[in-house]
């Protein structure tokens, strides 16, 4: 990071999912890049992500891993949490996002429909994605007063 500002992300694995390894490694890697990582670990329901957002209002993203194929059911409460204004920052999802070894792109559409902002394959895409999301939010904020 080329700036000294604090950058915090909320990290976790979806509610029914106990796959821990990628979560451990991603937390390590983001910390290595200078992020503060609030890692909620495995088996984290949307409710717990929402609570963390309330606790860390300056979190720049919620990053959710899901490996076991249950991401759709596990994020079922995400639209409600968003509507209620409990999760306002972008939500990034990555991992193995459907059941089965042949993947249907419609399953990613279903995720978008639940209010997921970014779907990533590779943890290496996280930093550029976070930078981009932050840049566009900053731009939005700067543009808004001009427009209003």
């Amino acid at each position, binding site marked *: 990071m080329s700036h000294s500002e604090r950058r915090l992300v909320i990290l976790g694995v979806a509610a029914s999912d*106990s796959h*821990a390894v990628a979560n451990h490694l991603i937390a390590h890697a983001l910390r290595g890049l200078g992020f503060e990582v609030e890692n909620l670990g495995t088996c984290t329901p949307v409710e717990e992500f929402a609570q963390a957002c309330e606790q860390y209002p300056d979190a720049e993203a919620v990053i959710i891993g899901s490996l076991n194929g249950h991401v759709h059911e596990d994020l079922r409460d995400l639209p409600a949490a968003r509507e209620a204004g409990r999760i306002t920052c972008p939500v990034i999802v990555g991992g193995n996002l459907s059941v089965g*070894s042949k993947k249907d792109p419609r399953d990613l559409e279903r995720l978008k429909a639940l209010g997921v902002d970014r779907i990533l394959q590779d943890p290496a895409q996280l930093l550029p994605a976070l930078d981009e999301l932050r840049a566009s939010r900053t731009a939005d904020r700067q543009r808004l007063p001009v427009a209003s």
Partner: protein
Amino acid sequence: MTKISYLPGHSGSPGTDALPPLAESVDYIASLGKPTAARVLMDARDAGRVAIQPRCGVGGHEEMKALLRELENQAAPDILTLTIDSHTRLKRFEQALRSLNRAPADLNGYPLVSHGYLRGREVNESVTAPLEIRHGSPDARILFDVAVASGITSFEGGGISYNLPYSKAVPLAESLAAWNAVDAVCGELAGLGLIVDRELFGTLTAVLVPPSISLAISVLEAVLAARAGVRCISVSYPQSGHLVQDVAALRAIPVLARTYLPPEVDVHAVLHEFMGVFPKKRGNAEDLIFYGALVARLGGASKLITKTYQEAFGIPDTRANVEGLRLADRANSPLLDFVKADEERVADELSWIVDEVADIVEPVLAAPDTMTAVVDAFAAGRLDIPFSASRYAKSEIIPKRDAEGAIRYLSTGSLPFGDRTRRHNSDLLKGADSTGGPVIGSLLTGLTDDINYFPALFREIRKETQEEDAE
């Protein structure tokens, strides 16, 4: 398929009230005319072959029956599996039921509790092989009751091994108590003449689990199970990928059983084919599948749980599962009698494994109450596993592959190891890869390489610690 609007037991919520009494289920099982899993394991061991079993589970009921029938017709595994979905594992029965009704294909396993025991019996009756429930439930009491009522004679799990890898916030005291209840029912069933095979999940978090950790935890669970009345215990061990280490670990299982378990308990060694990051290319995945099966044979395992060439991608389709079973069964070939492990090295490795296990379990077993001692030891890091999903293990130990690929301890954390064991481990790691870079960075890249051991071995990916390729 008719939608399910109830759960077994009292209306609206899961339970066992509606289940038949144990004795009825025991009679039902006898009437099935199929061997129990315990019998199949015994026969396999007597015949000197490794029984073969797939992982398999889909949400829908008809789909589940079709899957099992197809696997049986095409690959004739010795034991078949009902893999349970991960909502049910965590007692998220409501979510399981909702997925089942809306989109059963979205489930990563068969929600047996939601389907209920009558359907469980239907599934059971659709094939001739006995069934095992494979899951990952910190508290499996409801699932177990439905399984027994379904006439299923093998049930995987344990109070440690189905907690720490499978949940975040279930206290160990709770899961140990829940599994003690399951084991006690197995004891009752044994009294009624039915031996339930109880497989312990020595695989744990599957990634870089040192053999002595896997076996130590199985020993503790086995001791508890035997005390509760269990009479047939399958100790499963996850293939590390290093032949000598794996053969030694499998052969350590009967040795440990003789030391720590009463003689009336029948103990089987079971190999779980490589449970970590699988290679992606079909041929490489198949190399690994066959290799695992050969290791099971050389290690004298009674049973092998197979993988498929689709492992890296997702839950396999039926055909891939069939092919995985068939390929693994080739290692049972009478033509391979000539294939041997290096017996001297196996014996040496075995004695170290048994010593490490003793170092870990004996302080716990020396305490007056084993369950409490287990809880305390995990809290203090004297028992530990790497990559815990749960808060209730410290994950302080750091595993590392040595130059040959065997899994050693880079850090033994707070494990009560003696100097001799510690020195042995660091000696073994002397030849291992390591960058000259900063310690933390190199630790992480080294770890990543070890996690990706097989994809790297097959050159599907580059090692992070080898910036310049030798080729």
